[in-house]
């Protein structure tokens, strides 16, 4: 009996050891596979390339790879919104196809590369993404390029494939002193979809007040104030109280600083060799002008603006806001469409920039949903192949349009008028077309939320305090300047 037990124990031990070794072997295999570069895969599979008619020029350069691997994606954004099999918005009734379309298309080029997509909501996404990146189990970070330390710069990939840079209207750019002078931007990821900041104009309210609609390609900052003033009061037709302007929500009113400082060309950064030697010249007359401008404009907002409750009846027939600024243009259009109010509203780009290098183009900036390569990934080349596929493949661009997103791909975004009336599509296309490649909501020549400590939060604080009458412009400037200087002082 004892001998039998011993044999049984030895047998079981051997089974455990054998399984462990098998596990190690497969892990090693996975780790080795990523070394296959797009060039290598191209050589291997040139002969077997499909002749799919729907494949466009860029997609045609994709190849079928027979290498087996698993590409792990993690993060928030569109994949979360639509899910694998699609979703239907309960408010607008709009249905969106799921990311299965992307997986199926990817399989056509990489049949043995499995996409493992883990989606998360936007709540707390930075913390979750950083933790996931730290685990070492992520190859592609969805919207990861906002966290520069965990991302791989894609300079070398873009040098090899410059056509990718040409294809898009925006790129996730940040600064990195180790790679280039701080005055230059380094691409950290590819922007998949963009969200231009737009003004929604209630044409009916304008008509009731007898005010002419603006030409968004030429209107000025002063025009916005004048129009807001004219449309604040008692509506001559309905007798209801209306408000001229509702800016981007008070809890993220730092974003109002982005477009207004850009419009006044308030370039505040004096880049040094390192961040420690960089100066932020916030205390200047253009900052005074910008902050005073925003305080004046907020005086034409609803008293509920400060609490974020002013948009309760926007997008309804009872709307009381003549103009309001939005960051999610396509969703806004869908809501308007679902309410049957397409003729009531129109979109406009924000006023033109008054001076400097970009004078004459709109001050509207764009938010984005991007993808980046995690810098501890062992499959960086494969990760690059995927994010490139997301911005160049024709089927994916069609899927993006079908999900009511605005593709960063310029050719795809120019097709927006097929999906919405000119009153909406033209102004969006105008912003996407004219916006400089490196100008984003996070980093530009007037604003940078990533490199200067609490700069973004401090702006929110002072703009709200000025709107409440609790702070004057000088105190606001001193507050922000001191915090930035203190922060930069810690980097020396």
């Amino acid at each position, binding site marked *: 009996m004892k001998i039998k037990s011993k044999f049984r124990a030895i047998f079981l031990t051997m089974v455990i050891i054998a399984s462990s070794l098998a596990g190690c072997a497969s892990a090693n295999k996975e780790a080795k596979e990523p070394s296959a570069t797009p060039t290598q895969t191209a050589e291997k599979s040139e002969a077997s390339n499909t002749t799919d008619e729907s494949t466009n020029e860029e997609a045609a350069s994709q190849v079928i790879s027979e290498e087996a691997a698993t590409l792990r994606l993690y993060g928030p954004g569109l994949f979360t919104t639509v899910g694998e099999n699609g979703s239907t918005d309960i408010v607008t009734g709009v249905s969106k196809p799921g990311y299965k379309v992307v997986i199926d298309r990817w399989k056509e080029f990489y049949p043995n590369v499995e996409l493992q997509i883990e989606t998360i909501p936007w709540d707390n996404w930075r913390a979750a993404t*950083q933790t996931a*990146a730290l685990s070492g189990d992520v190859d592609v970070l969805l919207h990861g390029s906002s966290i520069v330390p965990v991302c791989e710069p894609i300079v070398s990939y873009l040098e090899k494939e410059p056509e990718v840079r040409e294809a898009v209207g925006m790129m996730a750019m940040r600064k990195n002193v180790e790679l280039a002078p701080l005055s230059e931007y380094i691409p950290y990821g590819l922007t998949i979809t963009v969200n231009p900041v737009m003004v929604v104009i209630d044409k009916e309210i304008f008509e009731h007040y007898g005010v002419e609609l603006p030409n968004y390609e030429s209107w000025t900052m002063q025009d916005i104030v004048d129009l807001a003033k004219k449309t604040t009061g008692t509506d001559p037709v309905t007798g209801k109280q209306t408000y001229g302007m509702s800016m981007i929500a008070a809890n993220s009113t730092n974003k109002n600083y982005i477009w207004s400082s850009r419009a006044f060309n308030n370039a505040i950064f004096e880049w040094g060799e390192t961040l420690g030697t960089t100066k932020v010249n916030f205390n200047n007359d253009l900052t005074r002008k910008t902050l005073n401008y925003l305080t004046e404009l907020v005086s034409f907002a609803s008293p509920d603006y400060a609490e974020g*409750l002013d948009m309760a009846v926007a997008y309804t027939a009872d709307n009381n806001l003549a103009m309001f600024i939005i960051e999610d243009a396509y969703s806004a259009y869908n809501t308007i469409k679902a309410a049957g109010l397409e003729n009531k509203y129109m979109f406009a780009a924000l006023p033109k920039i008054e001076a400097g290098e970009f004078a004459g183009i709109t001050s509207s900036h764009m938010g984005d949903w991007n993808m980046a390569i995690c810098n501890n990934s062992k499959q960086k080349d494969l990760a690059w192949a995927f994010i490139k596929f997301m911005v160049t493949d024709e089927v994916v661009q069609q899927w993006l349009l079908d999900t009511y997103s605005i593709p960063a791909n310029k050719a795809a975004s120019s097709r927006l008028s097929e999906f919405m009336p000119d009153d909406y599509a033209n102004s969006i296309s105008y912003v996407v077309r004219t916006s400089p490649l490196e100008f984003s909501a996070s980093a530009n020549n007037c604003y940078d939320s990533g490199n200067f400590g609490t700069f973004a939060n401090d702006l*929110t604080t002072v703009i709200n305090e000025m709107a409440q009458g*609790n*702070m004057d412009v000088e105190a606001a400037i001193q507050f922000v300047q001191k915090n930035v200087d203190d922060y930069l002082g810690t980097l020396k």
Partner: protein
Amino acid sequence: MKGMGNHALINKGVNMKNKQLFALKLKRQLVWYSFIIVSILTLGILTYLPMLTTIKYSFHDTQVLGFGEEKFIGLLNYQKIVNNSSFLKSIANTFILAILGLASIPIGFVLASLINNIGKSKWQSLFRVGFYFPNIITGVSVVLIFQIVLKANGGLLNNALSLLTGQKVTIGWLSDSRFSHLGATILSVWGSMGYSMLINLASLQSIPSEIYEAAEVDGASGFKQWLYITIPQMTSCFVFLFITSFINGLARFSDLFIIGGNTSAGRPGGTLQTILMYIYQFSFETPQYGIASAGAMILFILTFTITMINLKLTGFFKKK
């Protein structure tokens, strides 16, 4: 020799017995330890190890945890945040909110006294459950409700105040930095007074009725009974609520984060930015993990010190 032999045998027997006893004791101890070993390991790995790591990072120049070069910089992170006005302001905010939040204790006591006076009946159960109810509502819902109740333009509280004063009141309880501490306190007291009431009520009902009967025989009025019997008998309950409420107040985060519109800026005007929000800001919004770790250690020291002072003052360390 024979005697010696017997002695050796006896010694051997005692040794054997001692060994058996030790083995038995060890076996029993191991059984007991086996019950808590999982908890100890979990606590060690998930609580104390990260704590030790945080101490380590507070002395390093670390931007994002696990990425980039980590350079030992001594006390520089501590020096940076102690000299930072926003951090000092966040400490002040934390203490102001924690102290104001203690209002839930007297309110809970008054409620408990009123409910206790009803006597044991279905009405008492109804009020007990009714007042405890806010405690089980999720924080997010509470904030959403109170954003309407406390709004400047036509909010429930302002409407009530307008009615009482005969003048239009438009105080932005959660949007004006001059009133936001009060607004945030109204919200937290509403959420926690049910818990305070329940603990107070349990404590009130544990006071022996004989003491009141004796006082009544001696001619003590209701107020005197309350002042000289109820209050002294409730001391340990108050101390417990004081310590737990204060520590909870120091760790306040999620409701203030939502009030600020899901940012750690502590809107309005930075008045609702607590130490935890400051730490969050440097952990995830503008990652400087070394600074965030130093902030976390300062918060730990503050909480630890306050707890020790509380325990000392309340005689926790006195030998009974």
